[in-house]
């Protein structure tokens, strides 16, 4: 009997959620010992598919075969029993526990005190974790507490958790989203090593480059449907991208030459401390000129969002000066800064940019409600809200179920972002700050936002763009500053940088 080469088979899987078909008749087969990538945009159904393999949901239709045997995977622990492990995008770690405690959680080693009382044997656990970490080259100190270690260590802990559970099928959900380019390289190496050690890897990602580097085969999903399964060797990035989005992608934007004017934002020797009194921005100086897109590139957590928050007044400045058009705003409150000439599209649109349980019109008026004619004698003028809301909805093509009256919570992410961008651009402020403006949006929405950012610049506004997506920065920026560990490695015109060079500054390898 010929051995079945497939360790995982998912046949004709359909999964519906209220109002949406997340997976529609998807069939994939993964060979033992290969790196199999799942490629697709946000919302294409990659994570849903894998959640079913990991036992977090059950499919409405279709069957799952593991090692040739049909299985009804009803829980993550059942999946673990089948030697399936998953590294989630959001780490599932207990912050006040040690690394070893996190790894053994759920599979604790027990000993008995005085022969009767069972207790969790942490001594042996620490030893086993140390051994395991050595065996796979995943360096961790078992007794470190999670809250004290960095992101890439936490990811290694997640991987060790799977290995500790003897996982043979390893699912990685967007594992590189939070890592620096070097860390990404070392992770990809770890993944290769795991494969070479006989593990089967399923990699969920929307980054073409990673797939080209490590994957053997790749399944492309679009809107819940399987587009096809391809051998990675012999595919080019452009082809993959167009299969992923369903139409030819224009990978470059139409960008006019910069017409820079006078400095609008002038930041001098800025220092910012976080809540714990830890300095996260350490003496940063830069200027953003009218008609210029000034981009800050960097790996998440190096102080870039704090710069935006400090300029907008959401975080306290511990040292330095911020001026807008010559007015010192360092000690202004949030509202006064906005009125001086600043709009802000924040990173977290749902938690910061919007009040999700307010209506759309209330959210669109978030910058204006306290001004005349929105209020008279402190009494809100509802008709003005309606009229203004309708204007913006039409102008920025914000789609929702009930127009002005819609609860923003029920709107799609793309339309929520349109509402924020529209509201902020409408302020007509000389400076606009965009932080991660396209995060989690689909390609159509991304194009739309990118066009608006360029329009702002061409209108002669100063634009401060902070993004973790290097591609986005390379496409849009006139000037790039690379931040590492709270300091700028290099500030230069975008044309002077190569992508690789930006990467090196991002990792702090290169310093000027």
């Amino acid at each position, binding site marked *: 009997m010929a051995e079945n080469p497939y360790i995982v088979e998912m046949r004709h899987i359909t999964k519906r959620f209220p109002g949406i078909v997340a997976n529609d008749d998807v069939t994939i087969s993964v060979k033992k010992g290969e790196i199999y990538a799942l490629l697709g945009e946000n919302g294409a159904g990659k994570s849903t598919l894998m959640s079913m393999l990991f036992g977090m949901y059950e499919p409405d239709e279709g069957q799952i075969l593991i090692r040739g045997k049909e299985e009804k995977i009803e829980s993550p622990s059942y999946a673990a029993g089948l030697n399936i492990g998953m590294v989630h995008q959001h780490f599932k770690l*207990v912050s006040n526990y040690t690394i070893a405690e996190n790894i053994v959680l759920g599979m604790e080693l*027990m000993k008995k005190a005085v022969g009767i009382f069972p207790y969790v044997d942490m001594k042996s656990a620490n030893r086993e974790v140390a051994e395991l970490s050595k065996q796979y080259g995943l360096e961790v100190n078992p007794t470190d507490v999670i809250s004290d270690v960095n992101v890439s260590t936490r990811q290694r802990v997640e991987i060790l958790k799977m290995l500790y559970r003897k996982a043979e099928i390893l699912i990685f959900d967007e594992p590189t989203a939070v890592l620096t380019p070097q860390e990404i390289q070392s992770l990809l190496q770890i993944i290769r090593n795991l494969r070479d050690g006989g593990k089967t890897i399923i990699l969920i990602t929307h980054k073409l480059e990673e797939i080209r580097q490590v994957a053997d085969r790749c399944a492309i999903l679009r809107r819940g449907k399987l587009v096809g399964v391809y051998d990675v060797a012999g595919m080019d990035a452009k082809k993959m991208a167009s299969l992923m989005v369903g139409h030819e992608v224009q990978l470059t934007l139409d960008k006019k030459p910069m017409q820079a004017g006078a400095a609008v934002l002038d930041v001098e020797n800025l220092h910012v401390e976080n809540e714990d009194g830890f300095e996260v921005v350490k003496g940063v100086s830069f200027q953003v000129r009218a008609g210029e897109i000034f981009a800050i590139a960097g790996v998440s957590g190096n102080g870039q969002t704090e710069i935006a928050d400090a300029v907008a007044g959401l975080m306290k400045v511990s040292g330095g000066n911020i001026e807008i058009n010559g007015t010192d705003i360092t000690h202004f409150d949030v509202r006064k800064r906005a009125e001086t000439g600043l709009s802000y599209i924040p990173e977290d649109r749902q938690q910061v940019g919007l009040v999700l349980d307010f209506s759309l019109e209330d959210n669109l008026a978030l910058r204006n409600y306290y001004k005349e004619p929105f209020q008279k004698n402190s009494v809100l003028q509802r008709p003005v809200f309606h009229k203004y809301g309708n204007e913006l909805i039409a102008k920025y093509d914000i789609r929702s179920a009930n127009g002005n009256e819609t609860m923003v919570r029920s709107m799609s992410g793309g339309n929520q972002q349109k509402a924020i961008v529209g509201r902020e651009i409408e302020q007509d402020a000389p400076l606009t700050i965009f932080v991660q403006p396209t995060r989690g949006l689909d390609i159509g929405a991304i194009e739309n936002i990118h066009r608006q950012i360029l329009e702002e610049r061409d209108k002669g506004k100063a634009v401060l763009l902070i993004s973790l997506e290097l591609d986005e920065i390379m496409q849009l920026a006139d000037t790039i500053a690379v931040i590492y560990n709270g300091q700028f490695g290099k500030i230069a015109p975008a044309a002077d940088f190569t992508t690789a060079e930006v990467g090196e500054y991002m990792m702090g390898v290169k310093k000027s």
Partner: protein
Amino acid sequence: MLNAINSVIIDGMSFTLPLFIMAIGGIYSERSGITNLALEGLQGMGAFVGALVAYILGQQLGGDSRVPFYMAMLFAMLGGCVYSMLHAFLCIRLKANQVISGVVVNILAMALTSFLTKAINRTAFGAPSDKFDLGVSDRFTVPGISKIPILGAFFTKVYPFEVIIIIAAVIAWYFLYRTRFGLRLRACGDNPAAVDAAGGDVAKTRFIAVMVSGALSGLAGMCFAYSISAKFSSDIYMGYGYLAIAGYIFGNWEILPSLFACLIFGFARSAGSEIVLAAGLPTAYSDLIMILPYALTLVLLIFFSKHNAAPHALGEIYDKAKR
């Protein structure tokens, strides 16, 4: 003088320990991630059930039997445990606001126990009354050790329930910090998703944690009924549940520091009333001393709020199917 110190210790311990065991109950619940303002109601409901059982048994077995006392302790734990399932159900299954649920459980406990006490007295025992008389529990003195100055007071006129509590507290400590269940329980309060991913059952763990808090609070309520109150009546709702909450907040949600906090509260109380007594002050002065635990906790929170960290996921609804 020595006598005064002795009675401070004796009274202090007999108040501290019930408070402490209730605080441990609160720690179980809150370390698992469920805010528990319901301790007050849980101890009252526990004491009601226990007192009812003791009252019935007392009538059957006569005054000298020790059986009613121990059965009361057992049934108080059962009663508190069963009633606490209401809080657990609201918070975990119905995803209600945990603060509101706690308030509801308290109000309902007061209403139900007062009503039932009267109704049962009238219909079953044929005597209109709003209480079940229990009397104060017997006490014992350990021969020998109790003669040691000062230290001996800890072994003098001890309520049997103090021993029960110490045993229960040791078991509770062991389970929370040493066992698999405890490891998962504390993980639930920090990051329930981690427990879920590791194959643990967050809802079940939390449900059990709340039930433990019910059982331990019930025990505490019964102890108060057998000591300070000498009966079950609506007097049981003196706010000891909230005092226990102050205790474990003061103790930073850890068992041993909470014991320390409860000792401060208990001894301040007994020392206070001893001083009031010794100085011949009006009894109203003992009210001033009662302020101390609450004021201390507030002051602690003001000055040490940075070091005082509630469990991360406390009060959060965990919904694994949330999309």
